[in-house]
């Protein structure tokens, strides 16, 4: 057991934090709410040059052999200032899918430019009908067609779908669940950019009989891909938790600061016991979220699927219970000013709300945990 961050990890955290406070304060996120892409290629390029994007990959892929924990550190720091660049979509979900299941050529084509900050990815698995069961159900079909295939169906609310160079798409193919890499500029790919509650963008993507060649199939269709998508879902959920830690921490800090400075009835309102106790409860939920998320981040790399599921679901549950409690109470304790769009605290509420539904919500994770055989046995 070793729960100490390494020197490298501490340095990584500092570098990211410095970069964020210099290059991407919260005002930048707010400005990008008006942007049709929602993020900036120049900043992404910078991140690539700083080496962060490669950090969580094996050395063979040009990475630093990092663990998921490294990605979690980056995501948490980006979350603190709501930095909108598509790190999770490119590096954690679609990126890891390529790293885990792609062949060398595929990694060269689609992953390498990402690590350099020159391209981005999206993981397109959610559909109007499959809710969070993305590994278990795909209405999108991949049908054999001559030497290749054609892809038909619609994916919804695809994170970074509006901007990704390459989409990793789940589909029901001849051999079962199949993961397909699709360049976004291909014929038959129709993208519609949609606005999301957190001021970002996503895409609804239709594949209208898009032609797919065999070399665009990532990994082995069938059980292997089911396991892969299940794993990617956990990676995405763990990343959502890591980001929620950053979001929750800042919402908490802003609230404590407000309690110390806002004066009503001639005293700082933080002197009132009921609000003090609420703030302590926020602290508690925040610490539990931080702890559960660290456990998830460490277990998500493990081979024991059951332990991975349980640790990730426990963290996602705590996001829904504790992370949201922090966000809701942050608004409540800010009072009227917290309801105005001009104050930043509302942005944290909205991002927390979005993180709550990404990669499985409270009910889905609770049900999954409850059905794990290991839960009964423990």
């Amino acid at each position: 057991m070793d729960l100490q961050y390494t020197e490298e990890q501490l340095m990584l955290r500092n570098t990211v934090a410095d970069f964020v406070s210099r290059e991407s304060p919260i005002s930048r996120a707010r400005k990008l709410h008006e942007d049709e892409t929602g993020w900036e290629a120049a900043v992404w390029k910078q991140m690539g040059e700083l080496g962060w994007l490669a950090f969580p990959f094996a050395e063979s892929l040009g990475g630093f052999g990092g663990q998921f924990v490294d990605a979690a550190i980056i995501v948490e720091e980006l979350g603190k200032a709501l930095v909108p660049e598509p790190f999770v979509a490119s590096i954690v979900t679609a990126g890891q899918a390529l790293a885990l299941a792609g062949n060398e050529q595929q990694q060269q084509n689609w992953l390498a430019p990402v690590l350099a900050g020159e391209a981005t990815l999206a993981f397109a698995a959610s559909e109007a009908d499959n809710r969070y069961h993305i590994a278990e159900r795909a209405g999108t079909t991949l049908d054999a067609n001559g030497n290749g295939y054609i892809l038909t169906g619609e994916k919804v609310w695809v994170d970074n779908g509006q901007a990704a160079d390459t989409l990793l798409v789940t589909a029901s193919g001849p051999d079962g669940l199949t993961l397909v890499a699709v360049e976004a500029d291909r014929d038959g790919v129709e993208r519609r950019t949609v606005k999301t509650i957190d001021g970002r963008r996503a895409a609804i993507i239709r594949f209208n009989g898009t032609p797919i060649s065999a070399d665009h199939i990532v990994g082995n269709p069938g059980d292997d891909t089911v396991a892969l998508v299940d794993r990617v879902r956990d990676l995405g959920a763990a990343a959502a938790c890591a980001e929620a830690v950053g979001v929750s921490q800042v919402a908490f800090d802003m609230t404590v600061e407000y309690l110390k400075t806002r004066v009503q009835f001639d005293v700082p309102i933080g002197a009132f016991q009921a609000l003090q106790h609420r703030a302590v409860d926020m602290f508690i939920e925040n610490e539990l979220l931080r702890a559960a998320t660290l456990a998830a981040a460490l277990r998500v790399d493990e081979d024991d699927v059951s332990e991975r599921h349980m640790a990730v679901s426990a963290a996602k549950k705590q996001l829904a219970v504790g992370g949201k409690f922090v966000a809701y109470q942050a608004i409540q304790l800010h009072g009227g000013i917290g309801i105005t769009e001009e104050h930043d605290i509302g942005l944290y509420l909205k991002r927390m709300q979005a993180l709550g539904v990404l990669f499985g919500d409270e009910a889905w994770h609770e049900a999954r945990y409850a059905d794990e055989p290991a839960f009964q046995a423990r």
Partner: protein
Amino acid sequence: MDLSFTPEQETFREEVRAFIQEAMPPHIREKAEKSGQFTMDEIMEWHRILYKKGWVAPHWPKEYGGAGFDAAQRFIFTEEMALAGAPGLSPFGLSMVGPLIMHFGTPAQKERFLPKILSGEEVWCQGYSEPNAGSDLASLKCKAEDKGDHFVVNGQKTWTTYGQYADWIFCLVRTDSSGKKQEGISFLLIDMKTPGVKVVPMLTIGGTPAFCDTYFEDVEVPKENLLGPQNGGWTLAKALLGHERTMIGGTGPLLRSLNNLKRIAAECPDGQGQTLADDPSWRRRAAALEMRYRAHEMVVLKQIAEQQAGRQPGPEASIMKIVGTTLGQQIDELTMDTMGLNSLNWFNDPPAVPPLQEWVGSNFCYNRATTIFGGSNEIQRNIMAKMLLGLPTLKFQAS
């Protein structure tokens, strides 16, 4: 004792239902069924339709042009309006300043203001909060200098809900700074077209300009627009608070939210071939909220029964604000959860989700305000602890 309505009351319910069926214009009906979200124009259109019928002020006595409904009729009326998804009218004139004018106004004030509140010719808003006077309302600073026959008002009000649509604003202003802070406050009615009044709408976290900052710069307000005694405005503010507490409000919107929640669940796939409405565990979460709604509704019904019997509502009326707003937020939260990824939707045109789901995210965000405004739930608890439970007060000093 009997929980069912009398035949006369059931007849009245039929009458209300038939009226709505007949009088609601198709474009409003369509929105009522689909999104439940209305523009101010549509709200005022509905206001005028109700006015024509004589039902725009169910709770006003007939002598002032109200419908003169008794408490049970008001409950039925509210429930039917909610079930039909009819637009909710602006409360500032009808439910807030109107009753205050009836109680504290001069005959001239009643004649001047009440008919236009009823007809909808004049829309009102509320000027209470200031940047540094929220929960501690009595520390307000917006100043009205007495110039003999008029006041000159200077200062700022904030979180003025829908101030941009209002013709008049009722304000708490400071007319004396010498004594205890509660003692130098007056209640002024201000025409928003008066020179020096500036309204700056601002966005809320719901993404709509529901609030305004309202600025007053040397605004002249004639003395006849002083409601109640000079420096006696705090009494009116407290009366309004008491009145707010006992408004039936709450059950109507809650009932509509619950119905929408169920309708939305029936259109949300569970990812396993059914809808969320078929999922036993979703049903139990929704049932838990509806069961609490029932308890809350019964508190309201008991209070109506007291009013019917000509008695003042009991102290349990105080809990309506806390219970109603908290439950409303929980319904919003479950509705968001129910929608799954569709809960990410934010003002997409053309729409990215079914009509019923379109405004849920915006309302979810904006409704975080319900536990803050009208006296935050923390302030409500302070008041109840003291007034209802008689718990001692801690004398404290700034440290």
